[in-house]
């Protein structure tokens, strides 16, 4: 599947206007309503399979299941209190090899994910690590997720804490990156085919089409798109504005704690080089990471010489190189999901630092990760006239000046 094919299938999602949706009865809560709706889609064969988080048998976490049996959906949890594995990674795993022999009747799969997971999936599709044709991204207004370690300590209490915080729209118990997330919904640009609007001011629940494909699904389900969403849009806009302010403030504070060699090395001083941040990162898709490759395995003389020059050499000797280098490789596609921070055994605020780096780097190159499928990745394209500040102006008389000085 080529670039152009992908673009053709899913078009420019921004073309779809977000004005109205279709109401979904929500007496038993968002999750039950959505599960009921998904069951109907399976029954009507609108979707052949659904990818959705389901509670694991021990009841202490959730895992993505690809399922076609509606009975299994009873244990499904479209909006679980944690994100044990980034959904973008799951979608990539499922679709990375594409649709083998291009069957004409390929199964239609609905993937119920959070907005940051959908954005990661979009980035992965651009990186040729996922194929989104025949895959329908369904997102939900996201209240954030709890840090995994908090939840696993006591799943029941965690679930209760999450439910309460979600109801009160309180992000304080959530992951630090969720606390400062300003991409928790589908505005300003739709990133998914269908979006479940839960933040309506009157407490109702609506499904909003985000793409022509999504609209067609609602048609097939005989669900007329006629409910006005003005109240929801205003609500989301206000919240996004507040969250953006919060994000900027958090980033400003964060920069105070990380900027400069000393502070930066303090922040990463307890890193144990497990590279788990890279392992769970949806964007870090390389089979063989540069930082685990032979490029960093050096003969002992090299390590000894460096140790002698500095008096000591931290071992493994590439902690900072790993973090900065990893950022260089993936930061332009970073969706600030916080999976890295969640998986860090040393509680290093790596997700927060990366979200700061991502915002600044993406701003420099005029790009927002995961927003548009038809936009080229910033490092595979360029403009003739841009980034003039990078170039060092040449002072022709430099040498002569110095000769005169001498």
């Amino acid at each position, binding site marked *: 599947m080529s670039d152009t094919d992908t673009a053709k299938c899913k078009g420019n999602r921004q073309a779809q206007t977000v004005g109205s949706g279709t109401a979904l009865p929500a007496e038993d809560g968002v999750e039950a309503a959505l599960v009921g709706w998904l069951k109907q889609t399976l029954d009507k064969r609108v979707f052949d399979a659904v990818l959705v988080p389901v509670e694991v048998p021990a009841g*202490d976490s959730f895992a993505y299941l690809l399922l076609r049996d509606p009975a299994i959906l009873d244990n499904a949890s479209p909006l679980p209190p944690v994100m*044990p594995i980034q959904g973008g990674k799951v979608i990539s795993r499922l679709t990375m090899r594409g649709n083998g022999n291009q069957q004409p009747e390929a199964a239609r799969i609905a993937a119920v994910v959070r907005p940051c997971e959908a954005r990661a999936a979009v980035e992965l599709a651009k990186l040729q690590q996922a194929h989104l044709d025949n895959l329908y991204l369904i997102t939900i207004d996201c209240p954030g997720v709890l840090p995994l370690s908090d939840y696993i300590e006591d799943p029941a209490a965690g679930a209760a804490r999450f439910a309460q915080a979600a109801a009160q729209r309180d992000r304080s118990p959530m992951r630090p990156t969720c606390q400062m997330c300003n991409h928790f919904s589908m505005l300003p640009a739709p990133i998914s085919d269908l979006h479940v609007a839960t933040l309506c001011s009157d407490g109702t629940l609506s499904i909003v089409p985000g793409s022509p494909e999504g609209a067609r699904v609602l048609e097939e389900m005989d669900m007329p798109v006629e409910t006005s969403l003005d109240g929801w849009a205003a609500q989301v806009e206000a919240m996004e504005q507040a969250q953006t302010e919060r994000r900027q403030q958090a980033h400003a504070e964060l920069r105070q704690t990380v900027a400069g060699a000393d502070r930066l090395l303090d922040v990463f001083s307890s890193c144990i080089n497990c590279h788990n941040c890279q392992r769970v990162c949806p964007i870090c898709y390389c089979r*063989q990471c540069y930082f685990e490759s032979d490029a960093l395995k050096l003969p002992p003389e090299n390590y*000894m010489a460096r140790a002698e020059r500095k008096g000591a050499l931290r071992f493994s000797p590439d902690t900072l190189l790993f973090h900065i280098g990893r950022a260089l490789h993936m930061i332009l596609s970073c969706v600030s999901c916080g999976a890295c921070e969640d998986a*860090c055994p040393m509680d290093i605020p790596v997700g927060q630092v990366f979200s700061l780096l991502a915002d600044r780097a993406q701003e420099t190159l005029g790009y927002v990760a995961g927003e548009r499928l038809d936009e080229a990745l910033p490092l595979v394209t360029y403009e003739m006239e841009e980034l003039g500040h990078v170039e060092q102006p040449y002072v022709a008389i430099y040498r002569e000046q110095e000769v005169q000085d001498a």
Partner: protein
Amino acid sequence: MRKGLRFNKGAEETVRELLRSLLESARVSGVLTLGRTGGADGGVAYSLFTDPDAFGTDGVALPLLPFMPANAGGLLSRLTLKRPLSEPIAAVVRPCELRAFIELVKLNQGSLDNILLISSTCGGVYPLDVGANGSLQERLPQYWEAVEQGELDDDVRSTCRACGSFVPENADITIALLGETDLEAQCTLYLNTEKGATFVDGLEGAEETPMPGDLETELIQRVYSQRAACQDALFAEVDVGLKGLIDTFGRCISCQACKTVCPICYCRLCYFDSQDCERPLEFYQGELKRKGGLRVPSDTVFFQLGRLAHMSASCVGCGMCTDVCPADIPVSTIFSKVGASVQALFDYQPGRDVEEEPPLRTFEAEELAQVVM
């Protein structure tokens, strides 16, 4: 030919002075041991020290800190992977780290040449959480008190409490810690090898009282039986059967951190990261025809069983896997338990003898008749 050396100085001081004098006298060019990183609020990491000042009283080195940010066996392997060291270094490591390194040398992932191996009778280490929340320093008094009594502090890792291999094998120098009285004021070093004796021989500033000794004291024997009981209890906690494994690994987030930090899992490209584990969409559709649903990615129990098949014979039970697990899965308990049974099957102890072939690289002509139909 084990020889004892008694010093009338605290253990910490003795080891620091030993390492400093080794560096100052240029008997070694570097010392691999734990040290502080970053500033005041910094962390702890292994470092290769070349400056003797690191071992002064205010130095950043922390050779006896009960903490394991990485298995040093893996680090020594990385240091000597390309070729053996051309100049001598000393490495202060724990018994399990030493065993891991010996295993890695057997697996052609490192070289013992030019490394003076210093280890200690091990009182266990604290979990990584303790280092992450910064409470390591305050726990040290109770840790050393427990060690002097041959006990283990309640908060050290469960793997350590159940570890029956706390007396180092193959160390050139062993620092006696467990069950030694008054570690603040005196310390005994055992020189186990000719190499160890040569390095220490005639070092300045060491007030030596030769004391021939044996580590197999009554107290050490008691610790063995205590830990064995602890191990039985821990192994009994393992939830067995397929349902048990699914319950245990259900919350696995497939990050494979257990594999990344495992010193024995040295493969550059793990099978579970290989193309074999990537499937076309048709595969998943085919599976869905046969069953109602499947987990994606679907290799939690499979991954762990596969990893057991690949490395359990060499598992040294260091506990790193449990320590890093973001989902708090007791990986190491399962691996130690399976490791113990596989190792018993071949009468093999990882890290015991560098000349001994790993069990799956060799065979006997007549053996294991029970497994053949």
